[in-house]
């Protein structure tokens, strides 16, 4: 069986939306946890209808230090509605088996899961639920050996982030441990939507690519995230050489913007997903028609 994440990058670049699991959108009174989780499933359906190839699902943490205001608010809403790690795994378990799912959460959530300190229980539960990959934004390579070892045994990818500040030395360590895809952080800062494609993105992609040619491993797909909000940006990023585009805050802004009208949130989500997926395809076409690589 081909790896579901690898399969998502074959032929075409991947469009990878992110949502905070269990965030129902704005509310006056928090809905039940079951309703919040059901709402997340409905949002995921909308994203898939719009062309999602992989879905990143945030397991909310009380201290999301790498996230900007949009995802912070979504995390707060999810926690108020009763999101827990167990509900997260149930949600993933109930999703269509062929949709690749990447869990994104902070290290303390991984470390504390199951009651005793350590990473094994989280990895076991994730693998059993059908999580294909895990991103832990506050886990640098230095601290990642226990998680990487447990994940390797369980057949789960650990996806690392390469930042604009990442030195060549660190990039080597990141590439050694990273599997699934490399998360190329488009710009410095926290998550949050922006409108332009930064030079940092182009130079990061160029650096990773030239690095890969000297590196003895199968090339990893490179997905760019942090600040992507429009189809045009997605196209530019893919044209610049990315294999995938990750979008979170801009999608959550659609959910937030719809207020308490969930049907509208789902429609807007699907519309933006469609635009982003189309942008990703356009970028691929531009890349084939001429060298734009820097």
């Amino acid at each position: 069986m081909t790896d579901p994440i690898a399969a998502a990058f074959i032929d075409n670049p991947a469009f990878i939306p992110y949502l905070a699991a269990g965030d129902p959108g704005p509310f006056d009174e928090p809905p039940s946890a079951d309703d919040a989780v059901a709402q997340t499933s409905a949002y995921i359906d909308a994203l898939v209808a719009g062309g999602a190839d992989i879905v990143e699902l945030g397991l909310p943490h009380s201290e999301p230090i790498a996230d900007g205001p949009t995802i912070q608010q979504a995390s707060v809403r999810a926690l108020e509605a009763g999101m827990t790690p167990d509900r997260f795994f149930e949600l993933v378990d109930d999703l269509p088996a062929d949709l690749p799912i990447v869990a994104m959460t902070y290290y303390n959530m991984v470390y504390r899961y199951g009651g005793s300190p350590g990473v094994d229980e989280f990895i076991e539960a994730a693998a059993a639920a059908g999580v294909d990959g895990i991103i832990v934004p506050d886990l640098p390579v230095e601290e990642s050996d226990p998680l990487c070892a447990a994940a390797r045994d369980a057949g789960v990818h650990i996806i690392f982030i390469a930042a604009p500040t990442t030195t060549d030395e660190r990039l080597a360590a990141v590439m050694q441990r990273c599997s699934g895809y490399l998360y190329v952080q488009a710009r410095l800062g926290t998550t949050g939507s922006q409108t332009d494609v930064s030079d940092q993105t182009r130079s990061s992609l160029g650096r990773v690519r030239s690095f890969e040619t000297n590196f003895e491993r199968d090339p990893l797909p490179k997905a760019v995230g942090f600040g992507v909000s429009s189809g045009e940006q997605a196209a530019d990023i893919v044209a610049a050489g990315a294999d995938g585009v990750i979008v979170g805050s801009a999608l959550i802004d659609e959910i937030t913007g719809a207020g308490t009208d969930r049907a509208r949130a789902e429609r807007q989500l699907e519309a933006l997903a469609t635009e982003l997926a189309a942008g990703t395809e356009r970028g691929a076409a531009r890349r084939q028609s001429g060298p734009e690589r820097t």
Partner: protein
Amino acid sequence: MSSDGMFGEFGGQFVPEALMPAIEELTDAYDRYVQENEAGFMDDLQSHLRSFGGRPTPIQRADQLSERYGCEVYLKREDLVHGGAHKLNNALGQVLLAQYMDKERIIAETGAGQHGTATTMSCAHLGMPCEIYMGRHDVNRQRPNVFRMRLNGATVNPVDIGRGTLKEAISETMRDWARTVETTHYVIGSVVGPHPYPAMVRDFQSVIGREAKRQLREEIGELPDAVVACAGGGSNAMGSFAPFVEESSVDLHAVEAGGSDLSIDGDTGIAPNSATLSIGTRGVLHGSHTKILQDEDGQIMESHSVSAGLDYAGVGPELAALVESGRLTAATVDDDTALEAFHRLSQTEGIIPALETAHAFGYLEAHGEALGDTVLVTVSGRGDKDLETVIEESHRRELDVGFDLSVFDAEVQ
């Protein structure tokens, strides 16, 4: 401590990749300038601490307390450091270090506003632009310090997330740093955060214990039997203890905020205390593996203390390791006992302590007779910043201290 920044199992570097290169750069600067005194950095710092900071601070025999507890009580007077707390020892060190590293801008979090004030004073003194993050709740309960920071020319950004205390302020400062890391140094205010901060802040604060040890030797010719300090993140405690850790005859006592209640409510995610060393469990918060207040899922709890500077759900990893190994005793003092101690020290010794510091004296009241012949207590700061809170909080309670508030009735009703 081993070279990788671990204290036993505690410590480490749990921060986003984007920050790691800056942390590596800081570790290198810490090794060279602080540990090896490259370019005469430590001499330069000492000279600033002397002329600008007012060091060395004295030790003082507390005559009334000595009589009350039947032992020799010595106070290390960090309330006399410029700015009114031990916080300057670290802030000045880090701002100067940032200058040696050619950083252009300083950011810091603050709880009680003492670290924020120490940082803005250091920045004004050394000519560095500075921005401070402070939880909204703390902005409101430590107003004098907000004014002081602004008078120093700094921007103070209130943080509206969560309960609006120190935890949220640290998270928000880390977010700023993730954006600006190439030009900015983050001055963490306690022995918390990723390596090298816990070790570096301890080294800057160890001047407290080093001076006290020397001063006690000169004054009484011996070591104390016990050293007592309050602990929020743990910087005045670690700075007081560090030179005594190897002296096995000296007992070390870290006093945490017991708040209103030592129990925790997992359902609401609220701990009505900040007793991390006493009742916390292992976890990762703000870059290090330490003891934290958390629920069973690993969500960080909202802590509580009448004192803003102790109101934090984490604690320094070295303190966690010292408690784990049995070298350090962790204790708690609740809000009421701390307030009583605040009044007692003000009345009997003429020292108005910070509410944080008052916890150490609350502990002395409960255990003073059992701590040995000579007890050293660190007066981590002065209480000017707390007067509004103390008046309000004392009025709400029936405290065991003669303190007539009727004169304020017009204002507080």
